[in-house]
């Protein structure tokens, strides 16, 4: 029922489900029902980076040299990514925090959202560096038809869940007459179904939707153009890969019934819906590739190759959440992209050249007496 920022009830948080149990009270991490979320938090924190660390001065010159249709590809992708991260920077917090019941998961959601806000700030950093008037670009995001079409698909599941949880928190369970909406039924199975579909659509957002833009950014960088941008995109891709692991864990935990037995039945019931969310997103991304290349393609990439890549990556992601692959494409048509996506050579600062998950001030305390064997005084 109504949300409390500090639940006064006494209960064992180890016995709570991930969502729709008790509101979290004590933010404690000494015991965890699902330790994976604590590990994800640690990994995400070790990834911390700031867009200002990446020098974009040559990107400005590169951008001016690009042909008009290539500038269209570059800017459209930035706009689309700005939309996706605007949604992701707030929605996990708004939609999931009021219903989460485990402290480690609550903190993972906050850590996850926070990293998305860094992505949003990096788009501003990129746009400010390459154009004189960023307003023109940002304003177009809410009016450009191709982008607003996608805004609807990425936000509708979140919005539906938020609306239902709002009703649940104020009115409780039951059927309510909502002006403009008619009779709305709020029941636990309906809430849980809305939650499961939201998590699935977020998984698709992070696992599929970003990848057309990623491919184009790295396509430019393969030609040694816009390399500062590619560096930032590499850092974003590394974060997104971790986030999608988070949603895959949530979906798989729900489907297994280990966390909440009722959720397993809902996950099974939703399997076709989830398949359709993947397929719809893949089709939209293929259309997006057509829009990007409407005035001409770029060396090494065209809408067909990108379309095949979307199908391929969708197959990979569907398999990761236990669904059968849907598309015919079984091979990656742009295998060179992996060399860009790989995170072990992401370099943000010189002292971090060797490992990307660099821990500041980390020393090795595991010293054994034998380590001093070759010491003589």
């Amino acid at each position: 029922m109504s949300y409390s920022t500090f639940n006064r009830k006494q209960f064992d948080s180890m016995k709570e489900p991930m969502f729709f149990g008790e509101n979290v009270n004590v933010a404690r991490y000494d015991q965890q029902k699902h330790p994976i979320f604590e590990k994800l938090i640690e990994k995400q924190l070790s990834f911390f980076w700031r867009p200002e660390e990446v020098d974009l001065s040559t990107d400005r010159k590169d951008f001016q040299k690009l042909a008009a249709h290539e500038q269209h590809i570059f800017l459209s992708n930035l706009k689309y990514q700005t939309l996706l991260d605007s949604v992701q920077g707030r929605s996990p917090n708004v939609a999931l925090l009021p219903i989460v019941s485990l402290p480690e998961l609550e903190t993972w959601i906050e850590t996850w959202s926070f990293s998305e806000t860094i992505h949003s700030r990096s788009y501003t950093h990129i746009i400010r560096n390459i154009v004189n008037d960023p307003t023109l670009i940002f304003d177009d995001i809410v009016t450009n038809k191709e982008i607003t079409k996608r805004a609807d698909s990425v936000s509708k599941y979140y919005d539906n869940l938020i609306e239902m949880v709002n009703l649940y928190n104020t009115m409780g369970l039951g059927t309510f007459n909502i002006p403009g909406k008619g009779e709305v039924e709020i029941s636990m199975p309906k809430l849980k179904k809305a939650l499961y579909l939201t998590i699935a659509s977020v998984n698709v957002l992070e696992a599929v939707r970003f990848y057309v833009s990623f491919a184009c950014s790295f396509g430019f960088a393969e030609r040694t153009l816009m390399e500062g941008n590619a560096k930032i995109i590499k850092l974003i891709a590394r974060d997104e890969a971790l986030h999608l692991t988070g949603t895959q864990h949530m979906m798989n935990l729900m489907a297994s019934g280990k966390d909440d037995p009722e959720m397993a039945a809902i996950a099974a019931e939703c399997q076709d819906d989830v398949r359709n969310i993947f397929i719809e997103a893949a089709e939209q991304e293929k259309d997006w590739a057509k829009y990007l290349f409407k005035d001409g393609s770029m060396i090494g990439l065209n809408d067909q190759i990108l379309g095949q890549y979307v199908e391929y990556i969708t197959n990979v992601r569907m398999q990761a959440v236990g669904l059968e692959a849907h598309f015919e494409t079984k091979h990656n048509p742009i295998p060179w992209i992996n060399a860009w996506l790989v995170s072990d050579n992401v370099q943000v600062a010189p002292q971090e050249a060797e490992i990307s998950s660099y821990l500041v001030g980390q020393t090795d305390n595991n010293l054994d007496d034998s380590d001093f064997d070759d010491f003589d005084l």
Partner: protein
Amino acid sequence: MTLTYKQDAVQIQEVCPPTESSNANLQEQVHRVTLGKQQILVTEDEPLLAQLERAGIHVEYQCREGYCSSCSIKLIWGQVSYPFEPLAWVQSGYLLACCAIVKSDIEIAFFD
């Protein structure tokens, strides 16, 4: 910098016992990986992904440290173990090539 492998994190995944694999005088720690009609010999010295790549087999990858699940491959039978428990969810009947150490003869497959 060296990484210390935590022994207690070792996790063995067994799908079904390999048929008559480790009988003969097979060299210690060399295992046969069957992928469709191809066969590759691998050691236990490094994860499967790097060894498949050296054999000229393209495997999808991204993070190469066990969190992105891009290199998830079907494990039809055989045993693999993980020196670190990977962050990614490993579906039953699958392995994560970037961090799986092959522990017996195995058969793997990409998409159906």
